[in-house]
């Protein structure tokens, strides 16, 4: 049973709450753009969509690690180099991300750990720190969902300020942080006391969602890790490589794939320029191309394995967690229909 503090928000009060928050925060939410639902900045709370049947193609990752980002600009002025760091803009913005599902909440926790290593990445960590997360539990599942297997949903353990569970004509609001607590205290007219049955209602809802999911049988994550380590040289990887198109879509819509390329764009007169970061994909030959022209992962199966092993082995070595959140987006968009659940099942049977 859930241990966190609970409140009730009647559904007709949600826009009122978001309207108040929009006075202080820039609001991002799933919204309808030309027939597609995408995560984006909204100007009016009426644009908020909290229920959808085709999910946004790109996960909320894009709001923290943009597809293309200028890190800083530089200019030579009187024999001096003037640097204008875009980090100032990151630090200044207060954002509220509404409608984040459990899988995406788990992914943000993973990104936080990845980008905290070593000296840390102030751009990504800065955005994670000044973004309030209002999550919402799924009312149904997509055919590719298996977050129960990766222990990332349907109810997130951590990493949100508020998390809403849809029950009849109200939401049960789970208070996940001090920031969330303050929002609830400041808006007592919206955040009503929870009923003693509400914790049970959450439990029942979780059970219902889990029962709808086509998830492999749950195993301990260390068992999964060991199984992957043992399976590295098995023949079935070549079978998957024969199907894989190396198109890179699975990297870009994965909520935890964070690899990027960095380059300088220099003006023609060599006096001004900018350092740019863009998403990159380990499925591309150019990903491991070094200055001499050498490419380290020419073999398609080695690139496919790199992506899968990063999720279940290298990530555990690196940050102590697997970095798959069970959203199934990778095989939802895969033109070759390579289902990660099949790979997992094969590895566990290995």
């Amino acid at each position, binding site marked *: 049973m859930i241990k966190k503090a609970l409140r009730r928000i009647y559904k007709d009060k949600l826009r009122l709450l978001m309207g108040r928050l929009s006075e202080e925060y820039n609001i991002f939410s799933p919204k309808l753009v030309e027939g*597609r639902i*995408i995560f984006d900045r909204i100007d009016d709370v009426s644009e908020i969509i909290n229920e959808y049947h085709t999910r*946004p*193609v*790109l996960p909320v990752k894009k709001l923290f690690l943009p*597809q293309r980002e200028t890190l800083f600009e530089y200019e030579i002025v009187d024999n001096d180099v003037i640097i204008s760091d875009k980090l100032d803009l990151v630090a200044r913005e207060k954002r509220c991300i509404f409608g984040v599902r459990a899988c995406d909440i788990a992914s943000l926790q993973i990104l936080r750990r990845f980008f905290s290593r070593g000296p840390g990445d102030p751009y990504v960590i800065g955005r994670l720190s000044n973004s309030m997360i209002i999550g919402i539990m799924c009312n149904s599942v997509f055919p590719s969902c298996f977050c129960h297997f990766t222990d990332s949903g349907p109810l997130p353990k951590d990493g949100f300020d508020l998390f809403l569970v849809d029950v009849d004509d109200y939401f049960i609001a789970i208070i996940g942080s001090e920031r969330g607590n303050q929002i609830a205290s400041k808006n007592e007219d919206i955040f009503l006391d929870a009923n003693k049955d509400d914790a049970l209602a959450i439990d029942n809802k979780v059970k219902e969602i889990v029962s709808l999911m086509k998830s492999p049988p749950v195993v301990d994550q260390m068992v999964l890790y060991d199984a992957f380590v043992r399976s590295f040289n098995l023949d079935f990887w070549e079978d998957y490589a*024969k*199907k*894989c*198109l*190396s*198109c*890179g*879509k699975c*990297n*870009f*819509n994965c909520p935890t794939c964070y690899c990027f*390329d960095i380059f300088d764009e*220099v003006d*023609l*007169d*060599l006096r001004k320029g900018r350092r740019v970061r863009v*998403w990159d*994909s380990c499925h*591309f*030959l*150019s*990903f491991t*191309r070094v200055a001499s*022209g050498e*490419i380290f992962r*020419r073999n*398609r199966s080695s690139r496919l394995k790199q992506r899968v092993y990063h999720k279940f082995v290298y990530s555990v070595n690196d940050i102590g967690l697997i970095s798959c959140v069970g959203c199934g987006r990778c095989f939802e*968009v895969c*033109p*070759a*229909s390579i289902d990660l659940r099949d790979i997992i099942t094969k590895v566990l049977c290995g």
Partner: protein
Amino acid sequence: MHKLKVGIYSLSSCEGCIVQILNLEERLLEVLNHVDLVECRVLGLKHDDEVDVAFVEGFVSSDEEATKIKEIRGRSRILIALGDCAYSGMRFVAKDFGTSTIRADPINMYVNVDYHLRGCPIDSEEFLSLISDLIHGKKFKESSKTVCSECILLENKCLLDKGFLCLGPITRGGCNAICIANNKGCFGCRGLGDDVNISAFIESLKSKGISIPSYLLGLLKGPGYGSSQNS
């Protein structure tokens, strides 16, 4: 700094790639501060001497043009195939996906090519980054990204999933999936990607109930049309 002497030469083409360059407008004027443009047919410039960089657009459709491209190569330090006509002989359009018998030879049948700018027409931003690298004395590097990977960044709905033919998964990116963004399937004008898997793509089309165009079967045994210039 020594100004690069640049020529833009035309073989058989629609000159649409040159229009893409002219579309850069003010930014093209800035490029012209850093290079000497000595030949360009549409601008009425003519030059028969040595150049540092020769951009060649169009395919070879006659013996005269075959002689002309060899002559241009002979007096150019760097030669660039501009657009899909020069790069592939417009295999995917003028040659009706390899089935037409008209003479439309890619220029690398006759001369060595240092760089390719792909597409029909070329992407003007890509032209800008190539000429900028040359001005700075750098090598121009192409990414292995696919059209598919650029399409998903736009959060487009997949045309293959809707049952339409789209060559996005096997075509080299760099166009920002402009055709698919306008609801037209990719027809591969940028050539094949670095490590394409044609047989898997055919299987994928079959599983989605999309009929297999015959030129795809031809690509299964074709020569290295998609081989990378950088690897």
